[in-house]
């Protein structure tokens, strides 16, 4: 039997979560379907006027992506918590924050990346022009990992609480708002001829900030929640 180091454990965590996702494929698909359905609810609720739709499209796609990735948060730790694996992670000899980082990476690959891929299609249906679609992709590519990272903290804080999935929404949404503003802002700026670069680089800065702070905060939150 061989000892493994931190990197090995992180890799193992990633592989494990991705394998689990493959076994529970319906989970991955449902986040996507949720995204599609929310976007397609809007024409139903707002009416089919394409000009109105085009003008609200960036906002709608972004809000839908935000809600979808928030909903997916419920699955980040809950199964590990319920079956006792999380307790085992806390007593594991690796830095918890790095394990959490690996977990979040897997979670983003499962629930964030598909959104980025699917968003242009939905944007197209709402009548967005081609170059705006590209900006949309970029903004989501930078924005969804930030949301996963922030969400990891919120989900850790509400772990095991009744009504956790609504509470997590309350905690996490206010922190998502800057992401939403810059993200939807980038697309709108692009559509109205102003450059989207300023917004995108702000999003990038948010991503860096979240990468540095969130795993650490999430690990601390997990220790508090499991006490």
């Amino acid at each position, binding site marked *: 039997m061989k000892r493994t180091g931190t990197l090995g454990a992180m890799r193992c965590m990633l592989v494990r979560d991705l394998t689990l996702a493959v076994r529970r494929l319906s989970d991955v698909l449902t986040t996507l379907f949720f995204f599609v359905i929310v976007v397609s609810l809007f024409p139903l609720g707002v009416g089919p006027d394409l000009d109105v739709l085009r003008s609200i499209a960036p906002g709608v796609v972004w809000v839908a992506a935000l809600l979808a990735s928030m909903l997916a948060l419920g699955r980040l730790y809950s199964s590990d918590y319920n079956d006792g694996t999380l307790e085992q992670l806390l007593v594991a000899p690796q830095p918890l924050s790095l394990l959490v980082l690996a977990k979040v990476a897997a979670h983003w690959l499962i629930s964030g990346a598909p959104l980025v891929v699917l968003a242009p299609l939905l944007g197209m249906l709402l009548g967005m022009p081609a170059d705006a679609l590209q900006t949309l992709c970029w903004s989501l590519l930078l924005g969804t990992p930030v949301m996963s990272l*922030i969400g990891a*903290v919120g989900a850790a*804080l*509400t772990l095991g*609480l*009744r*009504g956790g999935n609504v*509470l997590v929404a*309350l*905690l996490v*949404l*206010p*922190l998502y*708002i*800057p992401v939403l*503003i810059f993200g939807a802002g980038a697309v709108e700026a692009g559509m109205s001829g102003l450059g989207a670069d300023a917004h995108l680089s702000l999003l990038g800065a948010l991503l860096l*900030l979240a990468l540095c*702070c969130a795993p650490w*905060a999430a690990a*601390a*939150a997990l220790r*508090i*929640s499991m*006490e």
Partner: protein
Amino acid sequence: MSGINWFKYASPASFYPLAGRLVPWCGGITVILSLIGLYIGFFVAPTDFQQGEAYRIIFIHVPAAWMSMCIYVVMAGYAALGLIFNTRLSAMMATSLAPTGAMFTFLALWTGALWGKPMWGAWWVWDARLTSELILLFLYIGFMSLQASIDDPRRASRASALLALVGVVNVPIIYFSVKWWNTLHQGASIRFDAAPTMAATMLTAMLVMTLAFWAYTITVVLMRVRSEILERERHTDWVAETLEQGK
């Protein structure tokens, strides 16, 4: 080492009587300062040539808006102390600050809305500053509901402390929102790098009101922290003794 031993007051047992002695003083100061501030604001300050009398709402609105942000920072500071040094009192301070902070946030929103109707013709516009202030209210509410939904007080205060720290990033966003986006809402007129642009009496009234709000905050928070201390330390001997004496 000479002088006051500050760490002594970091223990709930010695802070409790100290807070008890401070409360009436701070309460008195609150009343006096608000009377002065309101007097200057409503009787001394001149009528604005553009906005008429409605502008006087500024004497509540601006101090309340300032307080809403300051209290959040102070609360996060206490939360950090509690989290890092595991001091019980700081956690209780953070808990007691939250409702007051939420109250001021609400007050700023409400007076702002009242003011917006005559000024912009709408109760509410979705501009960056207003929205970020709304987010601040949500952060306070999130802080309080997280705390309310955890039963174990120790876990509750540690979890919400972490949340408060994460939420601090929002404060600069509120403050700079007027700069970053051009919006309907007025920019900061009091800045550290430029002379104030408003009349001296208005400025005085606003500052006095701010001080009054601070005094109010301290009073209420001390009162709240006292009952918090009693509640969380009820199993200790000194609380039992205090309650005996109080009877």
